[in-house]
């Protein structure tokens, strides 16, 4: 086959893409994220969510009597605006022709690492900064100081609700039980019970040993009295370690979550990672681009509970 520039570009892109995307056939870049977040895809600039206040309890209907009207009412809106991330790198004509191809082969690998790092970094920040900041993708009609984890989430029906301990605590059987019990106490905006069982303990790698002891020991793991591990029996908690990202920021924070379909912490793919290649006419350099667009944030705090590290 004659190597002409057009073929060259396509061949090069195909090769680089193969190296870049190949490993994702085994494990997607969002493999941890998809276990933790309520995942969505979307096809517009931003997505707006509205939560409702909820109905009161049903009203008794007497024989022949009319039904009582009720209005669910608006509660909170949240808008998540997708942000694009990308970069390009130049492969000079000389580099393409160079014997030392090892450098170019590293190139898509590094880009893949970069994509994985980027999405995991921004997604993990929803949790790691969830005690003191709002995700940058997010606007809402909630108070600007109402963070994902708070002891005073305002309820539309009056009062407040908490999804973190009033004093942060290490991960122990006691604190984990308290978190599990907090799920039983969660209510909707009207104050009616909102119960979804906790399913997942999200932890930094430093707490992995502790999590396994708490969730998988047959006996109560914190003393030598050989009592049963009631936590294991009563709950069906799995643990998820977010390698590097959580532990490198806060090594002793931990989070308890309902199943992704039951909570409203969102990760929205606007465009999954894709590449393109172009040739610079004046230099013959190849430009290899990678691009992705997504947003992440929380629409509602119900179904998640967390405590900050010391």
């Amino acid at each position, binding site marked *: 086959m004659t190597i002409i520039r057009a073929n060259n570009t396509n*061949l*090069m892109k195909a*090769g*680089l893409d193969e*190296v870049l995307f190949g490993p994702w056939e085994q494990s997607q870049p969002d493999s941890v994220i998809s276990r933790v977040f309520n995942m969505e895809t979307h096809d517009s600039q931003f997505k707006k969510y509205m939560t409702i*206040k909820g109905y*009161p*309890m049903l*009203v008794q209907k*007497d024989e022949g009597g009319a039904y*009582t009207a009720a209005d669910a*009412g608006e509660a909170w809106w949240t808008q998540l605006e997708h942000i694009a991330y990308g*970069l390009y*790198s*130049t492969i000079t004509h000389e*580099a*393409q022709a*160079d*014997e*030392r*191809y090892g*450098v*170019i*082969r590293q*190139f898509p690998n*590094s880009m893949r690492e*970069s994509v994985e*790092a*980027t999405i995991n*970094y921004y997604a993990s*920040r929803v949790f790691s900064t969830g005690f*003191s900041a709002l995700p940058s993708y997010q606007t809402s009609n909630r108070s600007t100081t109402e963070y994902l984890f708070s002891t005073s989430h305002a*309820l*539309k*029906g*009056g*009062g*407040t609700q908490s999804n973190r*301990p*009033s*004093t*942060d*605590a*290490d991960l*122990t*059987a*006691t*604190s984990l039980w*308290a978190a599990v*019990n*907090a799920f*039983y*106490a969660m209510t909707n905006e*009207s*104050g*009616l019970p909102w119960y979804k069982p906790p399913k997942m303990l999200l932890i930094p790698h430093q707490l992995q040993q502790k999590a396994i002891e708490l969730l998988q020991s047959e006996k109560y793991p914190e003393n030598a009295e050989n009592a049963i591990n009631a936590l294991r029996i009563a709950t069906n908690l799995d643990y998820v370690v977010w390698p590097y*990202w959580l532990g*490198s*920021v806060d090594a002793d924070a931990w989070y308890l979550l309902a199943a992704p379909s039951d909570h409203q912490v969102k990760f929205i793919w606007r465009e999954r990672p894709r590449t393109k290649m172009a040739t610079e006419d004046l230099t013959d350099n190849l430009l290899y681009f990678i691009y992705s667009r997504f947003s992440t944030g929380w629409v509602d705090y119900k179904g998640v509970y967390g405590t900050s590290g*010391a």
Partner: protein
Amino acid sequence: MGKDSKEFERLEPGECEPVQPEDFFRYEGKDPRFHYHWAENNPRRIQQLKREGYEVDPAASSAEAAKKVDAQREFLKKSMNDPATSKENVAMAREILERMGSAPVDTTVNIPHHVMMRTSIENRRQRMESRITKSKKMEDMIQANISDLDKALKKSGKGGMKAFKDLFDSVKEQR
């Protein structure tokens, strides 16, 4: 039916008082100059937090616990020596005295398996800033990684089509 229906009055959303769970980790008497944290009660964890500028809250310390234990011990001894104390109560006091050992932390203040530790608000602020900095460093690292490779590619020397061949050979190997 009409009489019973009074029990089923309509509840407006605002009338439903949210259930407030027991605030298990509430800690009374916090000093506003300090940040508090329930640490797991094991020596390694306590030492780790001490290295990071935390201290056991004096109200939850072993010294404070010892004072309370001493006061209880004195009370029991005094009761035992009081002629008005019944024989049963004397026996009970003796048994309690025998059981009373030293307490590592004040168990009347601490939650079992936890110790209340605290650090200055300033130290806490610095720790939180450090987390933000660490987080930012990760972001910078991602950029630097790509930038270095970009430079390396540009500095690559001259050569032939072997580069392409190597690339596709490597892809074949991966398959």
